[in-house]
């Protein structure tokens, strides 16, 4: 097992910084080191891809950055917040206001319409109903789903569901967009559509994007940096020039 090479801080404001980040699980007598001493920095507005094979720890790192999980040791600092030191309540607020998440399996709530799904974070933020509905409509228009606002997720294609999930992730105008295999359940054409949207948000809204993927082609096409993980350790961190040929991956 190699130790993660130290990552030099890129220029610009640091959005995410982790120091010797560890996440260990205990299963009976065995300790599983899902994340094992990962130190990295991500600049604000950067598009970073976390790559690695299955079980490499990339999703675990993403969950720690998302504030869904707490490190066993080390720290993960987003902006000026040390997530390890936040209370559960503060972590929930952090997820609500700073982070937008997109998952491989879309994770829309089946019993709600698209509009309701998209405006759900605003309910937690106690935004008034009128404003909430306007924002949800705008977000759905942005992802081209204005005609589907009253449909339930089961009535939509995978691509449409992921677009709705993107709209929901963006509704609170987060600083970070964290995507966990966002094209994993989509065909290549639809996947490209989604990735174009992610890139667009990264460029137009200046959002920092951290995307977990096991598809190197996809990372090379869209990410400005590629970070490789293996067995919970950071094994490579290299800049990338996105090809953006618009072709299918």
């Amino acid at each position, binding site marked *: 097992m190699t130790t993660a090479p130290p990552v030099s801080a890129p220029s610009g404001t640091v959005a995410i910084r982790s120091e010797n980040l560890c996440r260990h699980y205990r299963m009976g007598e065995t300790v599983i080191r899902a994340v094992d001493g990962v130190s990295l920095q991500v600049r604000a507005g950067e598009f970073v891809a976390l790559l690695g094979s299955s079980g490499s720890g990339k999703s675990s790192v993403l*969950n720690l950055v*998302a504030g*869904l*999980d707490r490190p066993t040791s080390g720290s993960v600092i987003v902006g000026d917040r040390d997530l390890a030191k936040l209370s*559960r*309540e503060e972590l*929930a*607020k952090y*997820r*609500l*206001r700073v982070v937008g*998440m997109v*998952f491989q399996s879309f*994770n*829309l*709530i089946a*019993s*709600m319409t698209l509009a309701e799904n998209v405006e*759900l*974070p605003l*309910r*937690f*933020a*106690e935004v008034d*109903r009128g404003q909430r509905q306007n924002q949800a409509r705008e977000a759905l228009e942005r992802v081209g789903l204005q005609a589907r606002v009253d449909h339930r997720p089961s009535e939509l294609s995978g691509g449409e569901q992921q677009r709705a999930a993107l709209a*929901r*992730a963006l509704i*609170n105008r987060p600083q970070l967009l964290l995507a966990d295999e966002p094209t994993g359940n989509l065909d290549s054409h639809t996947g490209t559509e989604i990735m174009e949207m992610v890139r667009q948000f990264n460029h137009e809204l200046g959002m920092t994007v951290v995307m977990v993927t096991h598809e190197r082609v996809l990372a090379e096409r869209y990410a400005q940096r590629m970070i490789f993980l293996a067995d919970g350790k950071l094994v490579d961190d290299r800049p990338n020039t996105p090809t953006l040929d618009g072709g299918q991956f």
Partner: protein
Amino acid sequence: MKLPDLTELALRNLRESLLRNSLTTIGISVGVASLVAMLSLGIGLQQLFSRRLAKSGLFDTVMVTSRRDLRGMGRDEERNGPPPGESRVLDESARLEMERLPNVLEAYPDIRFISELRYEDKPHLTMISALPSSAKSNESFDGMQGNFFTSDTAPEVILQKSFAEELLGKVPGRGIDETNVADLARPLLGKELTMRYAQRATSPAQPPSADAANPPDNSLSGAAYSVVSREQKLKIVGVSDLDPESMRGPTRAKVFLPLKLAQSLHIMQPTDLREVARAAGDQPVYSSVSVKVKNPAQVQAVEDAIKKMGFGTFSILDASRGLQQVFKVLYAFLGIFGSLALIVASIGIVNTLVMAILERRREIGIMKAIGASDGDVKKLFFAEAGAMGVLGGIVGVALGWIIGQVINLGTNIYLKRQGFPPEHFWAVPWWLVGFAILFAFLVSLVSGLYPAGRAARLDPVQALRYE
């Protein structure tokens, strides 16, 4: 999350598992219905007793007797206070003193005597009582045929139904008396009765001339009277269905005179003989005085004040105090039994919500991932439990009310067949409606405590992995 959003989400979630949540809500409804049915039975029974007691007209009345009567109604008085021989005479000055007590509306003497009444030349012997004009408001005269006395001195009488039957030569049947009062009153109203009575006429004391060993007490001048037989024509103005003196037992009267008229007739009272040695001059002495209090809450204070004056007292509150205690115990038991079904139903809520957590594990994970706090998740499950409680409570109250009506109806049919008058012994007051719904809501919230806490503590990463 704001309360309207919380409620909306909770109701939406309940609709998603309609059958299961409906069954749980029905469980709560049955529990609430059982509680409402039990308590409304208790309340209804208490109201029935209270109505019965109130009909006696004594709820706001204190009966005052002289301790010299030696037949005091309170045993305490026999033990405490001065011996009867040294206690005060219940005379006109005492009555006026009582009338001046705070919160006393009036104090009127209890004039009650047995006399002969002639109707169509037939003599009828009965107990006659005098009523003050305030007795007009007594519920017993609500359904009366005819009218109350035109004035407090009018030579008029009101008959009790059973005496009217006697005058008409009718024999009351056994069990329920279904004789129509209007039929009895028709031939009697406006007719005349002749009352024969013994009048107490004051006469100067005549010292016995021959008895030198027992010289007359000159300080008791005027304490002598003669008894004269008199007749008084009385017009029948009303026939009362109910018995306004049902609490008096064997001494209850069946014919009623206006009080002032009775006083002006100076009718001989049993106490006159006993108190002849103490009565000052022509001042009448009463066997008892009824003191009417402004409202039942002040009865105790007035009773105490009268006791301090040296008289014996009795009020229906004395009798009903024990009864109220019995009803409180009855309420507690009925409430406990009624609540049992609700407690069983609350286990259903716990089960339903725990199932919902299992089913919606991923949904909880999603909500947490997009910013829901532990508190939001907890409140959502609380709201679902509370909504089931409120819905169950509303349906349960309605169900309890229907059960009550059905049982009331059924029991009244049974009572009628047994020859008893119908009774309304089932009451669902508004406070019970509110209490039952609130209780169901609170029980549901308590039931939601564990599931809501469990949902709030879910690890979002684990929850999102759940398929």
